[in-house]
């Protein structure tokens, strides 16, 4: 079980070696917050592969977004992607995932923790942010921020949801060291199917499959690495650097997942299979603009 408090993360502390952290699937968190009338910056709970049991001593308005963890409220199935009215004393139970890697629980008012550098996000490795800088444990008590908004049933339009998470290859732009790889290796990278390794986490996703071999043996000088960078260590198995990533790295980067697809990376489970498809920077930008249009569209939320 790995459940952490997450919000949009803390960007801007690269000079201290601090990566932004934040929700692995920020779109699901954003939509979850929208359903319970929270500001976009509110913190929710990010559950990974397995949920948990949450007891509500007081009334609350909640939402479940992201992957389907088979949630029930006092035994009755809970509709995901919809705001839910919880009465005092009710218990919300979530099991193992039925779809992707992560489910988000948002509560009206937000999860209230002491912010670290302006964000509630847990950074597990450095033990900062979130609830005492760590994943949740059995028996933890979470404070909910105050909110006076009455319950209002809201649902995310399933058609828009589908358009936000297209099936198919993960789209990438060329990485800064793409030309370190001979054409045959680039071809291998773009035709191979990779499997997400068991060792994957919020720092990075390890891929299993066809190795991508370098031409020369030149040493790279350590430099800053972007979110979603696909770095290739000497043995050739790529690693996608993710939200709790190292801020600098010394392995060549063959590609970088486009911003519009980063939220899909957050839903990849160990043993899931992926392929990569190269797009140019222009395309990546228009896909991001298109996604943003869907997200700000008023018809996204059905009331």
């Amino acid at each position: 079980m790995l459940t952490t408090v997450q919000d949009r993360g803390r960007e801007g502390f690269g000079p201290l070696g601090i990566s932004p952290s934040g929700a692995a699937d920020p779109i699901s968190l954003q939509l979850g917050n929208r359903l319970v009338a929270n500001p976009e910056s509110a913190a929710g709970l990010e559950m990974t592969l397995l949920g948990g049991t949450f007891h509500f001593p007081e009334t609350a308005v909640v939402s479940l977004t992201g992957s389907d963890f088979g949630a029930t409220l006092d035994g009755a199935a809970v509709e995901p992607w919809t705001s839910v009215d919880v009465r005092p004393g009710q218990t919300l139970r979530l099991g193992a995932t039925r779809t992707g890697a992560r489910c988000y629980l948002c509560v009206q008012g937000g999860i209230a923790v002491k912010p670290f550098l302006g964000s509630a996000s847990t950074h597990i490795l450095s033990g900062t942010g979130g609830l005492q800088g760590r994943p949740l444990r059995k028996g933890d008590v979470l404070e909910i921020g105050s909110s006076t908004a009455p319950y209002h049933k809201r649902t995310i339009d399933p058609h828009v949801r589908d358009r936000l998470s297209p099936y198919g290859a993960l789209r990438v732009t060329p990485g800064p060291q793409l030309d370190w790889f001979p054409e045959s290796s680039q071809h291998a990278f773009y035709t191979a199917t990779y499997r997400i390794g068991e060792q994957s986490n919020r720092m990075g996703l390890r891929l299993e499959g066809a190795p991508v071999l370098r031409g020369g043996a030149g040493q790279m000088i350590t430099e800053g690495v972007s979110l979603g960078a696909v770095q290739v260590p000497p043995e050739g198995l790529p690693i996608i650097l993710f939200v709790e990533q190292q801020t600098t790295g010394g392995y060549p980067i063959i590609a970088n997942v486009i911003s519009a697809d980063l939220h899909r990376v957050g839903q990849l489970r160990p043993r899931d299979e992926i392929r990569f498809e190269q797009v140019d920077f222009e395309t990546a930008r228009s896909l991001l603009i298109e996604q943003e249009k869907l997200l700000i569209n008023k018809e996204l939320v059905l009331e």
Partner: protein
Amino acid sequence: MMDCVRIQPASDRSLLVRFGHEITESNQQVRRLLHLLESEPIANICNLNPAYCSLLITFDALKLTHGELETILSGYLTRLDEVRLPEPRQLEIPVCYGGEFGPDLNEVASLCGMSPAQAIELHTSVTYIVYFLGFVPGFAYLGELPEPLATPRLARPRRSVPPGSVGIAGRQTGVYPFAVPGGWRLIGRTPTAMFREDRASMSFLSIGDRVRFASVSRARFKTLESA
């Protein structure tokens, strides 16, 4: 200087600015550009990641394009030579070398054809520059390690390096702030906390600092650790 600057997109929301390959000179340019961007921020830049010879600039791709940012940056790059960097701080890091704290000290010494005592003497003999903080919060890349001590990384990285471990790799040295996997050879450990969220600056070291290591006994280590 402009001639040796290369700008390249790293992702759809970041640019890499590179200043040649010679670390001492290039890193000074990196620190100048960082300083300038911190004192005169460009709107819609979200993050800066300095390294030896490069600065990674992350921006809001909904509000800025690579081309637009590059144009704004060129104005900054022409002014680098005017930038006066703040006077560097001089700091000391106490280290208990060898034994369980520095499990690779003996191997490093033998690889370098010297005694462990000579290796310690060399490591403490020079003043290092903090080229940048990266990898994990508060991890300072220090250089340059004296040439006779230069040793390659471990063939198989450790799964977890104890916090405070002092490592060397190539001509670099540094202190692990947290328990993380690591491939640098460990020669000692410091009781100084490299990163604390309750400290105003958080990181013990900042980019541009000058640092010396000082050898301390195990007893002194224990005293400092509990202080």
